[in-house]
């Protein structure tokens, strides 16, 4: 049985010697699935007996059991507490995951998002009863416009990739409005995978632009691709190598010169708040990951929020709904024709990730204009400190200062038998979350480190010391130790190949397992 197998402790040859009777190892507690802890009839809620009524379900009453396990509240609390302890979060330690901006998530933001009058608002209440919420959304819009120097914001996208979709749909709608929909979008090869996927989801063909030897867009290769059928460029700036695209104004001018638009991926806004505004760089639209730059928690993979700032040229095409100032307070525009503009449609149910808006606004108000600039400066300072301290040990991919993240490649591991993956797994044993690996694709065996502004110098020094030590171990020929890493985690390296080849995506009762075999 599965549960027994899992409780059986480390097998022979495992890195940790000396098994225990229970399979637990001190504070590292093994925990079966809730389905394996079923006490039929047990429940973690006390609900009253429903009144006897004449049912109105027609012929559609459920037949047969569902298959959900019964557990009491203490069992549920212990279960999720135990499994939570198998996770590494920002609260646990340093999380230098490049391109992800894993910064501290303040708890006041959580508290405020749950306030009565915010967390319990229904999206379809009469608008007269939600004026305070509209004010909050409008205030956030003002902060985002001011930080980016852009005239408009579409608030409804649910995440970064959803914001990309919103921006590219605005671009396509703007071209269609002139009768010239265009076919192609240019995307640098260093781009995050969502960029080409988004362009394809908007019906565009994708053309890749190479990077130059300085880690930036190859300007002449870019200009060669410019043609009448190019709708625009999707460019991340600062880019995924952690570098500012210093030709950005030329790039913007060139794309505008052929009647195209400049989509800026704003994933790395954390480097430049209060230092430069995308609106001054010729950007037409840019999504902002509130879950990166503005500290709304990543939550193990979401929810995020991806508002998109828009230029004057694209603003009329912004999707529904949006808040405007009406005669009697704020008003939510939910239908075409209720206000000016030619909205391209709707992207999401209701009005956006409002709970994330509350958290992001609390974060912005906490920092203010002075603090936001300090955030970017400290994020850039921390990254450059890592770069300076590690460039002689690891192999820095490009010269010069970086922005908020530092990129290394695997040249320093040449002939050691240790890969970027091995190195990252060894970092886990040293108590750190690994950096981003094998991304961006423009350097070999990439290691992208983003410390963010919320790490102390002591924390960075500890990390630097560990990375230097691991590099020395790799060079000293300790290849087996790297291949065995991680050794001290709740699970060691997992077999991803067989997981994909024979997908098991849900638990089934043991008798069904047998029947299925």
């Amino acid at each position: 049985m599965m549960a027994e197998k899992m409780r059986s402790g480390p097998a022979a040859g495992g890195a940790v010697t000396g098994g225990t009777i229970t399979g637990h190892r001190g504070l590292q507690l093994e925990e079966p699935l809730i389905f394996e802890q079923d006490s039929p009839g047990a429940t973690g809620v006390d609900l009253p007996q429903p009144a006897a009524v004449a049912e109105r379900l027609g012929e559609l009453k459920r037949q047969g059991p569902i298959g959900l396990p019964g557990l009491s509240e203490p069992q549920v609390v212990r279960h999720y507490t135990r499994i939570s302890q198998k996770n590494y979060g920002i609260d646990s330690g340093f999380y230098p995951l490049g391109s992800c901006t894993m910064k501290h998530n303040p708890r006041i933001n959580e508290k405020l998002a749950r306030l009565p009058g915010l967390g319990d608002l229904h999206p379809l209440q009469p608008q007269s009863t939600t004026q305070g919420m509209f004010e909050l959304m409008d205030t956030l819009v003002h902060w985002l416009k001011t930080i980016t120097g852009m005239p408009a914001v579409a608030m409804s996208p649910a995440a970064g990739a959803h914001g990309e979709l919103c921006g590219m749909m605005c671009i396509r709608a703007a071209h269609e409005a002139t009768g010239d929909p265009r076919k192609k979008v240019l995307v640098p090869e260093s781009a995050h995978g969502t960029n080409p996927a988004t362009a394809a989801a908007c019906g565009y063909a994708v053309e890749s632009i190479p990077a130059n030897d300085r880690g930036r867009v190859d300007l002449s290769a870019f200009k060669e691709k410019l043609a009448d059928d190019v709708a625009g460029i999707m460019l991340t700036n600062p880019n995924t190598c952690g570098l500012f695209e210093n030709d950005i104004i030329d790039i913007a001018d060139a794309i505008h010169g052929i009647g195209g638009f400049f989509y800026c991926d704003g994933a790395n806004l954390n480097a430049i708040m209060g230092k430069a505004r995308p609106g001054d760089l010729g950007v037409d639209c840019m999504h902002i990951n509130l879950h990166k730059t503005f500290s709304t928690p990543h939550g193990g993979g979401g929810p995020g929020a991806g508002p998109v700032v828009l230029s004057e040229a694209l603003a009329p095409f912004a999707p529904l709904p949006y808040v405007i100032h009406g005669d009697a307070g704020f008003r939510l525009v939910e239908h075409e024709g209720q206000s000016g503009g030619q909205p391209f449609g709707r992207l999401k149910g209701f009005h956006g990730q409002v709970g994330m808006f509350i958290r992001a606004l609390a974060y912005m108000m906490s920092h203010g204009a002075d603090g936001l600039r300090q955030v970017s400066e400290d994020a850039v300072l921390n990254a450059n400190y890592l770069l300076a301290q590690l460039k002689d040990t690891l192999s820095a991919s490009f010269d010069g200062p970086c922005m908020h993240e530092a990129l290394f490649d695997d040249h320093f591991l040449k002939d050691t038998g240790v890969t970027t993956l091995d190195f990252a797994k060894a970092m886990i044993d040293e108590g750190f979350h690994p950096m981003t690996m094998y991304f961006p694709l423009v350097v070999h065996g990439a290691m992208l480190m983003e410390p963010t502004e919320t790490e102390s110098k002591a924390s960075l020094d500890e990390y630097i010391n560990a990375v230097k030590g691991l590099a020395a171990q790799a060079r000293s020929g300790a290849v087996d130790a790297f291949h065995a890493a991680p050794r001290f985690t709740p699970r060691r390296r997992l077999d991803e190949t067989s997981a994909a080849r024979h997908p098991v995506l849900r638990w089934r009762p043991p008798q069904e397992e047998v029947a299925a075999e």
Partner: protein
Amino acid sequence: MRYLPLTDEDRRRMLAAIGASSIDDLYRDIPEKVRLGGLLDLPGHAGELEVERAITAMAARNLGTGAAPAFLGAGAYRHHIPASVDYLIQRGEFLTAYTPYQPEVSQGTLQALFEFQTQVAAITGMAAANASMYDGATSAAEAVMMANRVTRKSRAVVSGGLHPHYREVMATHARFLGFDLVAADPGPAGGEDLIPMIDDQTSCVVIQSPDLFGRLHDLRPIAAACHEKGALLIAVVTEIVSLGVVESPGAMGADIVAAEGQSLGVPLSFGGPHVGLLATRDRYLRQMPGRVAGQTEDVDGRRGWVLTLSTREQHIRREKATSNICTNSGLCALAFTIHMALLGEEGFVRLARLNHAAAVTLAGRLAEIGGVEVLNDTFFNEFTIRLPKPAAVVVEALAEKGILGGVPLSRFYPDDDDLSNLMIVAVTEVNTGSDMDALASALREIL
């Protein structure tokens, strides 16, 4: 500043270690002419107390559903969330973790997602589910695009009882990807027959049950008609609690279920973040959008979980991915899972029965009011009533009395005069008998 650990002394020493003369030296790649000199025109930093005061003042200008008898549904439902749900999801190990790309340090998130997928598959009656989508509307739109890929056809037929936001999101994707969306008119009186609309080019039929008006649908005839023409049946569920007492879409022949999971564990939060569910049959797994957790073993032979089938996803497949989705709704999925774990089989079924019983009671009481007509023959926990005057006016009048009465259909269809007197009324376990008294007596006064 409380979130910034570096001191000025740290900054000075770090700049020296870098060999930079000043912080602006590190920004030298930004063209001089676009570098900002002074501060942005925004207020300065503020303490926790000041921030709390400012946002609390905004909250005070709203009427929350917790402070009024509230009967709002139409895709978002207020249910009681056990205190332990909100406590557990705020554990830092869950709250502050990234997507579980490093499985050795993410077994907590991955195990919870595996449990989530199992629960979703069980209640929908499907073989498997993904690890969540942004919300029900985006999940339904992704389901249509998935059906287009599976069938290699591009004409979606949509019920008039589908939530208008869901239909509008599909229409957006249809516009930009160039597939056809054929939508029936809204039919609050019932009797919709989609079967004649299915042809050989149809990739899928999308039908919601309980539908926008609260009516339940037997999916079996439409499933058979779809399968006869090589189309998939997409069942949409906006009130997931209904599946405690209503037959599952899978048991009635659905090929894909796209649902909103907000009702379990997730607060209303003015419409987001919520959590989209997407479940399907085994044979379509590899055409699913989004992340999915799968079971495997580690090098010591111990069971564990990883993100799997990633060759469908954008970070591997780039422009050939099944979807551009990356971030999903992980923490809301966790809340859903924990709430469902607390309920268990018995609690989930009883919760559904409580909701249904409350709705039957309220429908009976409202039907007694002169001029009010309940349109539904069947419903779960919401139904549509016809009023003798425009529902939007009635809702505003109710709000003035401190009652959040329901959703006027005109909120979705402002230009359809036939719908202007209709109101969708939802009732859940949180509504008390005195809430119902308040609504009934206020309606009597207003009408």
